[in-house]
């Protein structure tokens, strides 16, 4: 607010001028200088400041408590209302460097669900202080790392058994016995399967959620690596018995396996491209490619093809452990397919209504 001193100075100027004289002139100069300096000093805010008193920007404070001890870990302040939970997590990470954002689980109440990163802070607030409970979700690992580790293991382990390491198999027997061609074919198919998975992880898949706990990776790796060792042991054993129906069984099963692999690949490519184009609002549609026609019958054809691959592999090698592994995979894939199918039913109701989850018509 400019204080109008200018009007006073001419008045003062006028009075000494009225009295006249050089003395009055110098007095006049000092006074006008004084007035000028006052003017300069008073002109601090040349522009009127933003009207803070009626401002709508209220910053939030987020208080973060430990979920078990209820002790306060830290307060994140000056949180703008437009920010998301992820921004709060980043700020929290700066304050406590050991909790990086993907490891932080925040809940509104002690037994409530974990809040998503995309949640807006304003939607959580009842006052200007928000209280959140923190849980350490454990060491996290990226999805790409997860899948690469999980698939590289079986690839290498099977090959170790294939070359018949002397520590695993009796050397005398190994050199003596003739190896049926199905053993070589099985190795080829198994490697093909995992190489395809690895290449798809690197070049095709686009992962939505960033991370998963390390524990899941260890569990998954233990499962895959353990079972691969078990099945590789029997298929490459010197006393392996080839399938009962001979070449016919092997060739038909190998053909089915290759078809399922191709189908799985095309489905994954189609799913990845669909997300890429941004049209999240439609269920993937079959194209000219006959392998994608399974989309007409089933909502999760990638699981169908995966299950098909493993069943073909079982028939091809006629090995019970592979059958057990395939059975467990069927159970696992069915559970995942069911979940996904329910999600699709909610999102894409009319199209998905008549489809099965994983096996056409049946389930």
């Amino acid at each position, binding site marked *: 607010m400019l204080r109008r001193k200018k009007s006073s100075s001419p008045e003062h100027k006028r009075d000494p001028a009225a009295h006249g004289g050089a003395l009055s002139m110098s007095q006049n100069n000092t006074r006008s200088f004084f007035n000028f300096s006052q003017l300069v000093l008073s002109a601090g805010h040349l522009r009127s400041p933003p009207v803070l008193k009626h401002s709508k920007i209220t910053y939030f404070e987020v208080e973060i408590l430990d979920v078990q001890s209820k002790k306060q870990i830290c307060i994140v302040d000056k949180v703008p209302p437009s920010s998301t939970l992820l921004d709060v997590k980043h700020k929290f990470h700066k304050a406590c460097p050991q909790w990086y954002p993907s490891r932080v*689980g925040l809940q509104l109440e002690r*037994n*409530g*669900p*974990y809040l998503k990163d995309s949640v807006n802070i304003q939607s959580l607030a009842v006052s200007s202080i928000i209280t959140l409970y923190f*849980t350490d*979700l454990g060491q996290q690992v990226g999805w790409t790392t997860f899948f690469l580790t999980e698939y590289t293991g079986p690839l290498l382990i099977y090959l170790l058994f294939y070359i018949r390491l002397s520590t695993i198999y009796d050397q005398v027997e190994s050199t003596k016995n003739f190896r049926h061609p199905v053993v070589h074919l099985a190795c080829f198919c198994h490697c093909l399967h995992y190489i395809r998975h690895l290449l798809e992880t690197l070049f095709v898949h686009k992962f939505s959620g960033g991370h998963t706990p390390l524990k899941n990776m260890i569990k998954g790796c233990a499962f895959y690596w353990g079972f691969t060792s078990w099945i590789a042991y*029997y*298929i490459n*054993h010197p*006393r*392996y*018995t080839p399938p*009962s129906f001979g070449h016919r069984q092997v060739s038909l099963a190998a053909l089915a396996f290759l078809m399922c692999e191709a189908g799985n690949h095309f489905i994954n490519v189609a799913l990845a491209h669909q997300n890429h184009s941004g049209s999240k609002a439609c269920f993937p549609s079959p194209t000219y490619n006959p392998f994608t026609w399974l989309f007409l019958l089933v909502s999760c054809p990638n699981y169908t093809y995966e299950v098909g691959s493993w069943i073909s592999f079982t028939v091809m*090698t*006629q*090995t*019970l*452990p592979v059958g057990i592994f395939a059975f467990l995979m069927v159970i696992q894939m069915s559970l995942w397919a069911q979940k996904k199918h329910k999600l699709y039913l909610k999102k894409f109701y009319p199209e998905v209504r008549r489809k099965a989850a994983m096996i056409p018509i049946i389930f």
Partner: protein
Amino acid sequence: MAASGSGGSRADNGYGGQQQPRRRKGPGALATAYLVIYNVVMTAGWLVIAVGLVRAYLAKGSYHSLYYSIEKPLKFFQTGALLEILHCAFGIVPSSVVLTAFQVMSRVFLTWAVTHSVKEVQTEDSVLLFVVSWTITEIIRYSFYTFSLLNHLPYLIKWARYTLFIILYPMGVTGELLTIYAALPFVRQSGLYSISLPNKYNFSFDYYTFLILVMISYIPLFPQLYFHMLHQRRKVLSHPDEHKKSE
């Protein structure tokens, strides 16, 4: 191994910390009636086994080879515990299906796949050791459940359930391990439940190695279960009001 039969360990023993609390709707009236009958029958059954043991001891004058006098009721009532897995699966008992299944299966495994299958171990003293341990534990446990369901739990039974395991559990585990160890040479000799290569389905199973692995698995599992029960004891016996139905 499930000597104390903590089939009622709930999700808050460290497994379920990250999920929403399972809303425990208690069993309905019909389910409660059924559970009371089940627990009463099981208590009676194990009492029969206990009485059978005492009578056989008094009749024979020694504690050797008492297994034969209670063989049938033991098999019947221990196998009947499989129903508890279904109880958890149907939600009328608030316990984890996996944990209960694991404990019941280990008992059933010992009853059928070791003691029944390998006849030569039935005269061992270690069999008596675990049978006695199981009998006392199960009588207390099933009466605990019965009284809990009827909401009239005497403190003595609660105390017994959460205290006697301190001795009974290690006793039972010792008996079980000694029995499996005694069975090993007979399994090796007869090739019991084992299948070897080559065969049409390219599968092999060595029961001898499997039994050794089972024995080794006691090493990580027994301390966990034991300390879990100790922890439960501290919680339950120091807060008598809050944890009326805590198992």
